[in-house]
């Protein structure tokens, strides 16, 4: 039986970000009777709803901030008591602050790398000094952690360029719960175009602005409704919301939105890691249009998803789908791919095999 501690300081439930979606699902599906137990160690703040956490089947430990970050002797005693064999961190900051101290107590340290943060920082145009310090933290994490889990081979190669040892890395994909996100297929009559994401995140915010400018405002998709699902800054809602360009905010059940969706978009021009929104769209059987960067790191082909870097072409794709273009094979291929390769159950089994390799 493998016992792993998953360390987090940040909002988790309700799930409003891709990072939280990954952490919660990995913990859910990595708890397998007599095989593996993954316990969440969360720094207690009011960002995560404790009631929702208590509805989960996995074990959670909520620690006061001073214990989480400073009193490692007590934290380590608790880890020993719970027979935790390795500790996972999901961002360089927490790993350097907490993981380093735990390693002094002979704990094994794993880095679950949701994004290459320095690459993301560079791509969204942050100051050089900002992405340099992030790059250094990622390099330092690479020297401390025993196992590093980038979410794609693209990210793995970026980390190698930063000096992270290749031999410590194993690719662990992002995923989707294909049993929860049911296959519904496109609702052609609804004439609804969906973008899903946390709009506070700059790459998503820029994508929404491009959808507004090139698909909605350009007037080439008259009679269509644009739906933006996910939390968004108030000023953005005030600026862009119209009856045909609607911000739904946080959506607890995505199936309800997918039932009313004709086409889904992911016109991303920045970012890192892989886009969980695409896996959600494809699991629901919604024809999806994305950029090359949008599908970066995902092993998808033009037989599964529409790809174009020119967002001005998107209305053409949408019209083709609505006018009976051949999308049936594409959505079935895509659903099969996500079920076989990107379902959290598949990803979690892979993760457990990596932990076993490390611990044995």
């Amino acid at each position, binding site marked *: 039986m493998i016992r792993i501690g998953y360390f987090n*300081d*940040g*909002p988790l439930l309700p799930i409003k*970000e891709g*990072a939280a979606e990954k952490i919660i699902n990995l913990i859910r599906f990595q708890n397998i009777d007599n095989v593996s137990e993954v316990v969440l160690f969360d720094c*207690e*703040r*009011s*960002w995560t709803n*404790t009631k929702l*956490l*208590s*509805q*989960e089947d996995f*074990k*959670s*430990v*909520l*620690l*006061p*901030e*001073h*214990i*989480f970050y400073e009193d490692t*002797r*007590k934290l*380590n*005693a*608790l880890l*020993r008591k719970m027979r935790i064999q390795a500790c996972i961190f999901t*961002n*360089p*900051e*927490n790993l*350097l*602050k907490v993981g*380093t101290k735990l*390693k*002094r*107590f*002979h704990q094994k340290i794993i880095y679950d790398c949701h994004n290459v*943060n320095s690459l993301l920082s560079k791509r969204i145009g942050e100051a*050089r000094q900002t992405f*340099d*310090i*992030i*790059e*250094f*933290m990622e*390099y*330092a994490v690479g*020297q*401390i952690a025993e196992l590093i889990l980038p979410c794609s081979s693209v990210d793995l190669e970026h980390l190698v360029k930063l*000096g992270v040892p290749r031999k410590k890395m194993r690719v662990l994909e992002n995923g989707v719960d294909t049993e929860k996100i049911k296959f519904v297929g496109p609702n052609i009559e609804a004439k609804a175009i969906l973008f899903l994401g*946390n709009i*506070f*995140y*700059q790459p998503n915010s820029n994508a929404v602005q491009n959808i507004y400018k090139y698909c909605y405002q350009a007037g080439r998709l008259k009679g269509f409704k644009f739906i933006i699902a996910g*939390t968004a*800054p108030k000023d953005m809602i005030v600026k862009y919301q119209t009856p045909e360009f609607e911000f739904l905010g946080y959506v607890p059940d995505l199936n309800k939105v997918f039932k009313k969706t004709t086409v889904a978009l992911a016109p991303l021009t920045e970012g890192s890691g892989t886009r969980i929104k695409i896996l959600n769209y494809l699991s629901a059987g919604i024809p999806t249009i994305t950029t090359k960067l949008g599908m970066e790191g995902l092993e998808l082909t033009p037989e599964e998803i529409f790809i174009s870097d020119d967002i001005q072409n998107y209305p053409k794709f949408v019209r083709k789908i609505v006018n009976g273009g051949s999308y049936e094979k594409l959505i079935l291929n895509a659903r099969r791919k996500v079920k076989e390769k990107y379902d959290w159950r598949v990803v979690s089994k892979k993760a457990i095999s990596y932990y076993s390799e490390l611990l044995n």
Partner: protein
Amino acid sequence: MKKKYIYKIGFPHWLKELIEKGKYDDVNQASPKKTNSYKLIHRHRIYNKKLTVGRDIIGSKKLPKIISKSINNSKYTFRTARRLITIERHND
């Protein structure tokens, strides 16, 4: 001329951004006061538990004391015991 800075590691970069943009409030989000207890959630129930001090010996040979790297004419050093990053920047 060399200039030395200390970089204190704080919240994750993405979370800092969300706090700055107003998605999450940093005020009043502080953890409970310095207590010696934690909450355990197990089988849908919440328990308050006391923490104890362990007797484990500190010091792993696998942990380097110093990690450093030069990036864009600046030298970054992470001292694992103090958990601080120092940056030596060359100002010409």
